[in-house]
C-alpha cells in the first residue's frame, strides 16, 4: 500500500481548498449523504435546467481529505454536463473504484480524466472507499430527485 498514491498532490489541493463549496443560487434539487460510522456528512445542491443540463452544482459538508477532494472534483467534473452524461460519469467513477475500469466518457478532457483517476488510489484502502464514493451516490440521489 502506498500512502502517496492515496494522498496525491491533487487530492491534498482539493481537500484543502474544495471548489464549489456552499449552496449554489437557485438550486432545484438537493440530497444529503451521511456515513453513520464516522459521522461524515455531505449535502449536494444542483440546478437542473429545462434542457436537463446540470447548470450549477455545489456542496456543503465536513469530512476527511478524501471525501472533501472527492466532492470538490465531482462538482468540477459534473457542472455543465447533460443529465445523461452526468449519470455515465458517475457510473464510470464507481466502476473505476470497484473494478479498476478506466474512465471512458468522451466529453471529458484528458486533464479531467486524470483528476478523477487520482481518486482511484483509495482502492488499496478498503476502509476508505466509502469516503470517496459517498458524495457520488449522493449526487445520484439528487439527480433522481430523491431527497436524503
Amino acid at each position, binding site marked *: *500500500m502506498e*500512502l*502517496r498514491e492515496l494522498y496525491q498532490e491533487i487530492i491534498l489541493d482539493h481537500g484543502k481548498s474544495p471548489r464549489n463549496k456552499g449552496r449554489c443560487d437557485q438550486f432545484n434539487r438537493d440530497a444529503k449523504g451521511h456515513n453513520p*460510522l*464516522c*459521522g461524515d*456528512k455531505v449535502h449536494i445542491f444542483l440546478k437542473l435546467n429545462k434542457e436537463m443540463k446540470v447548470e450549477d452544482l455545489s456542496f456543503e459538508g465536513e469530512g*476527511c*481529505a*478524501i471525501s472533501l477532494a472527492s466532492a470538490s472534483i465531482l462538482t468540477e467534473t459534473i457542472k455543465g454536463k447533460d443529465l445523461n452524461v452526468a449519470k455515465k460519469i458517475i457510473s464510470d467513477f464507481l466502476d473505476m473504484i470497484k473494478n479498476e475500469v478506466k474512465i471512458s466518457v468522451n466529453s471529458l478532457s484528458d486533464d479531467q480524466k486524470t483528476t478523477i483517476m487520482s481518486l482511484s488510489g483509495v482502492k488499496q484502502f478498503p476502509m476508505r472507499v466509502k469516503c470517496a464514493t459517498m458524495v457520488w451516490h449522493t449526487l445520484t440521489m439528487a439527480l433522481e430527485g430523491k431527497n436524503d
Partner: protein
Amino acid sequence: MNIKDVKNYFPIFNQKINGKPLVYLDSANSSQKPKSVIDRMVRFYETEYSNVGRGVHSLAVKSTNSFEKTRDKVKKYINAIFREEIIFTKGATESINLVATTYGDKFINKGDEILITELEHHSNYVPWNFVREKKGAIIKFAPVNENGEVEIDEIKKLINDKTKIIAVTHLSNVTGAIMPIKKIVEIAAKKNIPVLVDGTQGAPHLEIDMQDLGCDFYAISCHKMYGPNGLGILYAKKKWLEVLPPYQGGGGMIDEVKKENITYAELPAKFEPGTMQTAEVVSFSEALNFIESIGIKKILEHENNLMEYALEKLKKNNSVNIVGNPKNKGSVICFTMKGIHPHDIATILDDDGVAIRAGHHCCQILHDKLGLTATARASFGVYNSKDDIDTLCKAIDNCKKVFNI
C-alpha cells in the same frame, strides 16, 4: 509477571504491519488476547467441549464445572456478594439493554425520568431511548464541562422525585474522565434511586469492587479485558435480579412450562437463556488470571505512566489538540490535528504500524457538544510501552509531512 515482558505473551505482536512492528493503541476499542486465553479456548474445544447445564454425560459435567468456575472467579474479582449476581451476556451492550428493558418495563412510567450524562457511549443512551419511546419517559443529560468531565453537582441538580434510574459511565471512552461513582451512589441512595454503571472502560482500567462502589448494576465487556470476543457480564444486586422479569425467553431459563403457564428458573439461569458462549466464558477465567498475575494496581500505574508520558509529548506538538482535560483521567487520549481530519491521521498512522481509532467513537452527543465531528483516539493497554508512544509521536509528525504542513 514482569510488565516489561508482557508483550511476549500476546501472539498478535509476532507480526509486522505494513512492514513495521505493530503498535497497538486501540485497546479502548478492543484489547488483544494473551496466549493463555487463546490456548484455554483451544484446549476447551479439543478436550472438554459440550453444552453446559443440560447433559449428564462426562463432558457436560466437565464443561459445566469450568463454566461455573468462571462465575465464581468473576464474583471474587469484582467482589460481589452472591455468585448469582453474575450474569453472562454477549457484551456490555446487552448487559445495559437487559437492565433498560426489564427495569424499564417494570418500574418506569410516563413522565418518569432517566438520568444519564453527555459522556455516554451510544450503548448507554440508545437502550434508554427505547424506554423513552415505549413508556413516554424523559431522558435528562448531565452536561460535561469544558474539561470533558461531568461534575457531581450537575448530577445532583437533575435528581428529583421523578428520577427512576441513574445510568453513567465509569470511564469515558473519549475524554478519559473517571466518574465519581461512589459519590453518585451516595446521593442516589438517599432517594432510593438505583445506579447503573457502564463499566466497559472502567473494568479493564480501574480497580472494581462492587461493595466499595455500591452501584446496583455494573456492565462489563470481556473483550476489552484481554478476554474473548462476544462475551459480557452484568453484575446486578440480587434484590434487583429477583424482581426484574426475564429479558429473553428460551431453553435453560425456565422452571416449568405448561400450556397455560410458565414459571422461570432460579438465578442466574433466569437471565441466561439458550446456549451460552461456553468456550468464551471458560477462557475468560484465564484473562482474569492474566490480570491477577500482574496485579491490577500495577497495570493501572503502568497505563497512567504511559498516558502522562504521551500527554506531555503530544502537548509539546503545536499541531495537536488534546480533547478534554479531566482531573481524573483513564488511559484514553482523544486528539485532533490542525488541517488533518482524524480519518486521514488514522490511515497515515497505520502506514507506520500504529493502530488508533478515528471517528465519533459512538459518542455523537459528546462530539456535538464539543463541536467536533470526529476525533483520533490513542488508548493504552498493559502491553504498551514508552517506545510505542515515541512511535506514535513520530507517526503524527509524518502526517504533517504527508499533508505538507
